[in-house]
Structures are given as C-alpha cells and as structure tokens.
C-alpha cells in the first residue's frame, strides 16, 4: 500500500427507479409497472486522495456527492469501476473498512439519543476496541481544541443542533480512523459554531494526519479547510485542483450588498485582491446614504457556474 488513502477509477453508480405516474390511478398502475428508468448518479469518476489530505468535494444539489461517499464507505456497491479505500474494496470488505473510517452525515446522528454524550463515547470506545490510553489521549486532544465539558454530560436529545453536530464530529474521530467523511457537517449552523467546527476539523487533521473528505455548499468551509477541491456536476468530475489555482482565476470574490435610503439593495461583485472594499463603500456613501452593509461569500454554485463559463479549467 502506497501513500493513497482512496483510489477510484472510472467509478459509476446508476440507480434504477420506477417511473411513477400521477394520481391515485397512477399509483395503482405503478404497483404492476415494470417501467424503470436509470439515473446515473456518478459517472466515470477518477479520483486519488493521498493520506492526510483534506479535500473539498463540491457540486450542486444532486451532483452525486453523497452517492460517492456512500460508495467509499461501502454501503453502496458501484455499478462499475474500481474503488479502493485504505487498500480494501469497501463494499466487499465492509466490516474491515468500517474500522478505519469515521462518518458524519449532517442532520443524522449516530449518538445514543437519551444518554449523555460521554456514554456514547464509551460505547464507541468499546465497539471500536480502542485502548483506554488512546481513548484518554483523544479526549485530552478534544479538550485542547474545543470546550467539551459543557456538553460531555448532556443527554444528546437536549443538545442544540450545533452542539449535536460538534458531538457527532468528535464521535467520528474517536477511534482515530484513517479517513473521515464529512457530508455537509456545517449545514444549518450559525457563524460562530461554523468557525468552531472548522477549527476543530483543522486541528484534528493536523494532529492525527487524518484524511478528510468534506462536502459542503459553503465556500467558507472550503476556504478554511481544504487545499484541494474536486467539483462534480451531474455525476461527472469537472474540476480537480488546488484551491489557489481556482482563486488565481477569479480571485477572492465576494459580493458586497448595500442597502440604500430607498430600501433597495445594490449588489457589486468585488475581487478583493484587486479592489479595496472600503473604497467602494466610501464611494457609494458619497453618492447616496447607506443604511446597511452585507458581505456575502461566493457560493460553490457560483464557482461552478464560473467554471462552466470557462474561466478556469
């Protein structure tokens, strides 16, 4: 085994879905229907991820990100193509693969709902056969990265979404897996919780050299965490390179929104590497009265749109 954590070659996944008909009559017809159509969720994806790398796996809704992750974890069998995770074929060797991976699927929790978090940790410690020393070391590391004391003894069902997500991320790293899959871990969280979670993930990756595959719709996550980004759309890989490379093509764009006296918003796309935001604001202020200011990160969707328009490749 070399330095690769994940190798995928020409990977495809099709889903067979019933063509459903409308209405009650249609539903009854569907009972006997053999009218299937094929949805290609992932098409001919080649991807190699090295150990310790943290990659942003991006794409619009329905692009095939979660499907790829499910294949990497072994719960889905590819329709065709090759896949190796930590040197094993995940869907054949699911149990072995499970020992070396951790997962977080935003909005689903693997924690025991009515028990305090610490009990879920102890359970995971035992089912992953983690030694007491490694377990204590990991808790120590957690303490150094985030303030876990307030949530450690709280029943999971009493946690806020942010606290629960944080807990789920800690749970995924607990057995010190080689690879952690984070599928939209920051979905629905506020800015400060996002920041907390980003610094936690960065810290764990750095300390444990864990390979991290991150999917998100928030460019801020990618900016804070990933050196390399892979973009897929309609199941196909359309971009795979350094984030710096991407930035050099369209700079560090942000959208500046100004609310004017007449209650309308004026939007300007600004490349911070070329233009000074304060200058734009000052200029606008001299012309009209500004009531409110917003700065919006460019979204992954906009990045993808730009790639399509041929600004980067």
């Amino acid at each position, binding site marked *: 085994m070399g330095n690769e954590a994940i190798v995928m070659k020409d990977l495809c996944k099709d889903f067979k879905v019933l063509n459903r008909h409308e209405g009650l009559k249609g539903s009854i017809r569907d009972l006997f229907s053999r009218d299937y159509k094929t949805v290609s969720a992932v098409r001919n994806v080649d991807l190699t991820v090295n150990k310790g790398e943290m990659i942003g796996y991006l794409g619009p809704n329905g692009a095939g990100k*979660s499907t790829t992750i*499910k294949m990497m974890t072994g*719960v889905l069998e590819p329709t065709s193509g090759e896949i190796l995770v930590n040197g094993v074929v995940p869907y054949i060797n699911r149990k072995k693969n499970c020992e070396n991976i951790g*997962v977080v*699927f935003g909005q689903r929790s693997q924690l025991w709902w009515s028990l305090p978090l610490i009990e879920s940790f102890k*359970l995971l410690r035992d089912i992953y056969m983690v030694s007491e020393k490694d377990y204590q070391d990991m808790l120590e590391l957690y303490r150094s990265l985030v303030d876990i004391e307030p949530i450690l003894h709280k029943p999971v069902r009493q946690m806020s979404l942010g606290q629960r997500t944080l807990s789920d991320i800690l749970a995924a790293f607990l057995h010190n897996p080689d690879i952690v899959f984070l599928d939209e871990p920051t979905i629905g969280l506020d800015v400060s919780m996002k920041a907390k979670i980003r610094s936690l993930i960065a810290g764990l990756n750095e300390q444990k050299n864990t390979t991290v595959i991150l999917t998100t719709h928030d460019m801020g996550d990618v900016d804070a965490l990933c050196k390399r980004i892979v973009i897929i759309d309609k199941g196909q890989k359309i971009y795979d390179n350094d984030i710096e490379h991407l930035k050099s093509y369209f700079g560090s764009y942000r959208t500046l929104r100004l609310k004017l006296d007449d209650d309308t918003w004026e939007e300007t796309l600004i490349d911070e590497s070329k233009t000074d935001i304060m200058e734009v604001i000052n200029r606008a202020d001299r012309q009209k009265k500004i009531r409110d200011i917003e700065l919006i990160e460019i979204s992954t969707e906009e990045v993808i749109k730009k790639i399509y328009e041929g600004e980067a490749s």
Partner: protein
Amino acid sequence: MTPRKLIALTRAGIMESLQFRLGTFVTLFANLIYLVLVYYLWKAIYASSGTDVVNGMTFNDTMIYLILATALFNFLEMFIVWDMSRSIQSGKIILDLLKPMTFRKYTFWSYSGSHVVSFVLTFIPTFVVVMIVTKGAIHMGLNLLWFAIATVLALIINFNIEMIVATICLYTESTWGINIVKETIVLLLSGASIPLAFFPDKLGTVVRYLPFRAVYDTPLSILLEKNGSDTISGLLSLFGMQLIWVVVLTIAGTLFWNHSVRKITVNGG
C-alpha cells in the same frame, strides 16, 4: 465474538431503557386492563362449558398460563420491523451499517439491554405476584433453570422472525400491513393469547411444529411443567425443537439479510 463490544451495547441499552421508566408503568397498567378482560372472557368460557377442566386445563391453570404469557410477551417483544423501516426511510440506517460489526449482531445486542430491563421490571414482578397469589402452583426446582434456557432460545428465535420480516419490508416498501400480519400470526400461533391445548387437534399438531410456538408456549410449558416437560424425554424434545428453529432461522435470516442488504440504496443525502 468480542464480549467487550456486546457488553458495551447491552450496558448502553440498559441505561437507555431506564430513561423510560414511565413506559414501564404504562406497560404494567395496560397489562392489568388486558388481564382483567382475559379473566372475564375465560370465566365465561369455563362457565359455559359446564365442567371445571377444559382441554386438560383448569381455570386457574389457564389464567396462570395467560398471565405469564403476557409478561413473557412484554419481555420478548422487539420493534425491529418498525425501527428498521423508520431508519431506512430517514436514511439513518447508513450509520448502523457502518459499525465495525455485522448489522445483525449490532441490532441484536442493541436490544439486549432493553430485554434485561423488561425482564427485571415486568417479568419478575409478575412472576412473583403469580407465585404468591397461587401459593405453590408453580414448582420451584430445576424447571426454573430450564425455563431460563428456553427463554434465551425463544429470544433468538423471535429476533430472527423479526429480522426476516423486517428484511421482507425492504422489498415491499410498506411496513404497516406486514407487521400487523406478523403480530397476529405470532400472537395466535405461539400460545401467547390462547393456550395451545385449546386448538383443534389437526391445527394443534401443525402449530406444535412451527417456530412461533417455540417463542411463548415452549418456555411457559417448561416453567409450568406441562406438555410432558416434566419428563426428560419431553424436555429434550421441546429443547430439540427450539434448537432446530434457532439454527434454521439464524441461517435463513443471515443469508436473506446478506443478500438483501446489497439492494438497500440508502435514502437521502
């Protein structure tokens, strides 16, 4: 098999079940209402038959059997069919499939803690009450040990029935109807609601060889020393039948699940 994993799951299950203390009282209360109904129903049956002994059982025999059957039912009851269909719908099943042990083992041992709790909180109290009220109708001897073994085998058989039905639901994508059918069949043919002695001869013979009977009737017969379980040969044939079903259903359930799990497409994401 790694005891550490299994003990950890059982421990968590016990703690989780204890969170729902109120549920235990509700169960006991529901049982009470059910048993009052059963009492009057069977009183009427015995009154109309005109004799004290019907199908070899006195009214007291029948009541003891049915009360213990109800307590055993609370103890053995599993909700795998419901839980699994819910976790497939929400896509949460992916997290259970990604545990470092087989899904069947993980599921079984996740439930074991709640069995321990319901055994201590509902079965034992019911048993003690029956024992005190009937003053010696239940023999206190080796039959208790045989009963314990038969109950563990019953638990495994019941788990496999649940798993097989849950797996069928993967294909039908509807749970409600199938689960009702399963519950009706199990309740009727296991002896949990009508003692097997009351079945018509032909049906009774068939039912004696089905797995459902091995879940409720066998442990209860052994506990109450009925159906020939007071002789060595009778005991052996009851255990033999249970063992056969444990083996057959475990193999069938495992194969069926392993085949079907590849079809799960894992919703959502």
